[in-house]
């Protein structure tokens, strides 16, 4: 199976690889995994607490090229968004952007789950965990 050019680009030059201090109150951490393939993805956001805007995002993914590309793309999209806008990112957006084939759709689902987990973690730290934020999970 051939990867799309965009997947290859993110795979060869992943954006925003790294991590933030998990205990920082401005940081939300999402850790997700897929038992079928053993992929594990950590995605973190650093939020400006006054504006609610995500100022930086980092990730580290162990998995296939599509999983790395999905999370790399997600961090690019997260920067500059508010936490609520971040929750609107859908896995189908990632599928379309990267032209993922059907067998790799679960990678985009993983990335969406990671975003939601990171935002939920951030909100939990802020003590503003709303029922909606729990429900999206």
């Amino acid at each position, binding site marked *: 199976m051939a990867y799309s050019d965009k997947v290859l680009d993110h795979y060869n030059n992943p954006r925003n690889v790294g991590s933030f201090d998990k205990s920082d109150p401005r940081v939300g951490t999402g850790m997700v*995994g*897929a*038992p079928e393939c053993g992929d*594990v993805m950590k995605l973190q956001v650093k939020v400006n607490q006054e504006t609610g805007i995500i100022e930086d995002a980092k990730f580290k993914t*162990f998995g296939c090229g599509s999983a790395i590309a999905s999370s790399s793309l997600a961090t690019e999209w997260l920067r500059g968004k508010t936490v609520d806008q971040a929750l609107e990112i859908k896995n189908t957006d990632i599928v379309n952007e990267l032209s993922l084939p059907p067998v790799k759709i679960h990678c985009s689902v*993983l990335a969406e789950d990671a975003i939601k987990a990171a935002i939920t973690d951030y909100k939990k730290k802020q003590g503003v965990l709303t029922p909606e934020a729990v429900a999206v999970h």
Partner: protein
Amino acid sequence: MPPLPRDYYGFFGFDRKLAIDSAALQKRFYELSRQWHPDRFGRKSAEEQEMALEATSILNDGYRTLKDPVKRAEYLLTQDGFPIAEQRGKDVPPELLEEVFELNMMLEEVKSGDESARPQLEQSRQHFLGLREGVDRELLREFQRHDESVEASPTSKQALQEIRGLLNRRRYIENLIRDVERALNPVTPSRPAPG
């Protein structure tokens, strides 16, 4: 001749239980192997010869599946409407993910030639082997719960659900052990188990 039962339990004439006596299973396997041996069908019609061939194939697949507790559980679960693959990662407990992540970081270090992570990796291997043992113990407990409950009852379904989660966890841990062992012994070819 009546049509062949496709279902492995039916073919072996076993109850649909998750705990199976391996000696009884082996005995039945040998009986059926003799019964369907192609040599006994040499003078029979082409139709019967074909049936014997098919029976042998079901028999071998069935034996391979039923003698392994994990494969057996996966088989029964799929038949009872709990397909394994359809589950998402939500069943993986967060602390396990954390460990998996750390493990992958170590694996990356060792692969890049940093030998200092090696002792830690050996520790991880022991740790994950222990986790797998724990899962196996839980599996046996749930097997028993399933087998003692009435078929298709809420308790039985609950046990199957529980087993599905455990099997997914087990598969995950299994993959990790494989990765660690590969990193620890990159050139050693895998030796067949004794016996």
